[in-house]
């Protein structure tokens, strides 16, 4: 029961901060909201018995990625790029439509079998580094290798698209 209460606190905060990310006009506030969102995600990982993932989430996303975001925003001075041209008042119908869709999704999921599924207590996972490492290098070796190539491609892409010598 206590676990459920905590889940709702983290979940509501996560969704709320995610909405804040897209509604703030100042990009710095958006990034800070994103940080809140990621911290809630880390908390949810803890509740899913994966402390290691939670720590990685905090280290990598909150610690590294978001700091990079802040650097980039401050270097580019995006405030000059007039944020109002991206966020106009005319999209209320879109928000309304989205609201209807979200309510529909909540209704569907609440009627589905998904709500009655519980995490098996027999699973003897402690979510430690050893288990994750073993899973990655045995059962999930194929996706793991492919993901490493995805990272390589992303790296190449950053270099190729960032090259200076224009024609």
């Amino acid at each position, binding site marked *: 029961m206590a676990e459920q209460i905590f889940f709702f606190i983290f979940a509501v905060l996560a969704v709320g901060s995610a909405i804040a990310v897209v509604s703030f006009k100042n990009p710095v506030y958006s990034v800070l909201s994103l940080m809140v969102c990621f911290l809630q995600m880390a908390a949810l990982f803890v509740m899913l018995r994966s402390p290691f993932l939670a720590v990685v989430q905090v280290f990598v996303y909150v610690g590294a990625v978001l700091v990079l975001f802040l650097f980039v925003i401050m270097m580019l001075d995006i405030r000059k790029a007039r944020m109002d041209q991206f966020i106009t008042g005319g999209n209320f119908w879109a928000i309304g439509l989205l609201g209807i869709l979200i309510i529909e*999704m909540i209704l*569907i*999921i609440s*009627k*589905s*079998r*998904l709500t009655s*599924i519980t995490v098996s207590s027999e699973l003897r996972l402690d979510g430690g580094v050893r288990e994750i490492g073993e899973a990655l290098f*045995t*059962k*999930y*070796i*194929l*996706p793991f290798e*492919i*993901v490493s*190539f*995805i990272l*390589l*491609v*992303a790296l*190449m*892409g950053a*270099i*190729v*698209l960032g*090259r200076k010598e*224009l*024609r």
Partner: protein
Amino acid sequence: MNFNIVNVIFSMPEIIVLAGACLLILLDLVLYKNQKGIIGYLSLLIILIAGAGTLILSSPSVEIFDRMFVVDGYSTFFKMIFYLSTFLAVLLSINYIKIEGVEYGEYYILMLFAMSGMMVMASSIDLLSIYVGLELMALSIYILTGFKQYNGRSNEAAMKYVILGAFSSGILLYGISLVYGLTGTTQLADIAGILKQQGNLDIGLVLAIIFLIAGFGFKVAAVPFHMWAPDVYEGAPTSITAFMSVGPKAASFAVILRVFLEALQPVSASWTTLIAILSVVTMATGSIIALSQTNIKRMLAYSSIAHAGYALLGLVAGGADGIASVMLYMLIYAFMNMGIFGTIILLRKGDFKAEDIEDYTGLAKVNRGAAFLMLIFLFSLAGIPPTAGFIGKFYIFMSLIKTGYVSLAIIAVIMSVISAYFYIRIVMLIYMKEPVREFDLARSPANSLALIIAVIGTIIIGILPAWFLEMAKSAIFPG
């Protein structure tokens, strides 16, 4: 499962392509700026070696990597389409990227990475490996789209593509997570088994199916998830437009067929109508909006949307005939679309872009050969016999009629007649009007070879369809 040599042997074609691409990255460092064509020719060699590997391994159906990856006739057939389209796209690029001034080795390497992503997709029998394959392919193509980095349109296209693509990936992942939540597995055959066992349809699964359709629909540019296609096709380098209109589309269809006709087959009643509506809307939108286009790349984007609609009809028909007809369609589409983009690339020289439809006025009077090639590929896209395009549409419509969707087949024929107008209009311009300018072709041996392969494919399948259909039929997955 411990380290297993079988895994390595049966994923050898993928390993060859990925390892080859990594070697080319290193080689790229030591080459001079004007030697980058070598990387292109070596990529061709890698594709040929991988192709030979795939053919050697094709005969049995083997599941490896803990039932995530399968080597079977179906994946072999699709991999052949990927090899073919990448091979032709590389051939067409060697001269073209010199003209566009973006001759970099990374161009070919990214194409190889995109191709390996497609190969993983076609062989995947687990939603997890499907997803990572899809991302590897998509990411490489986002970069290639923005490769003409001095060009605003190219940048805009890449930006739009990457943002919408990331969004659609999110939707797809949400669908996958719902499927995992309801069945407790991501393995396609296991999902089918559990769904069969559960009997009645869970309403949450309907939501999951809608998300899966939206996610995959984006990748094949089905309406209403098609908005990115015209801008991206127009902005990307033409050789990449050719590549991405064929390869990724075939890969996505390979995945769609497996997911829907294998994993979600037990609940087919819940998605057949949805896909049918989607395909009709896709055909109609693609065919009708294409009528008013003045840029040939945009027009071909809408035409490719319409073609995705026809292929989706094969999914509606389902069964062995449906699967085989989509597979054949993808093969044919690879030949004819590569061909038409190849001719556009052939005309691109100096400052002449050859992107407006009006630019083709009177081409026949100046250059018979190029005009005749355009004629064949346009007729094939329109579906006029004896070209291959007719055969592709014919088998899809036949499989629809056999399964009782006669009205859908009639709608599809009507759409196909509408779409014939905008293809024939170009033929009219080429043959009936007087030329207003000189045409100077960007001829090169590589270009010519690509066009010869494309034209032979388009005509041979049109004349001897039975052999290719048998090949597709013998390669379908058990579903």
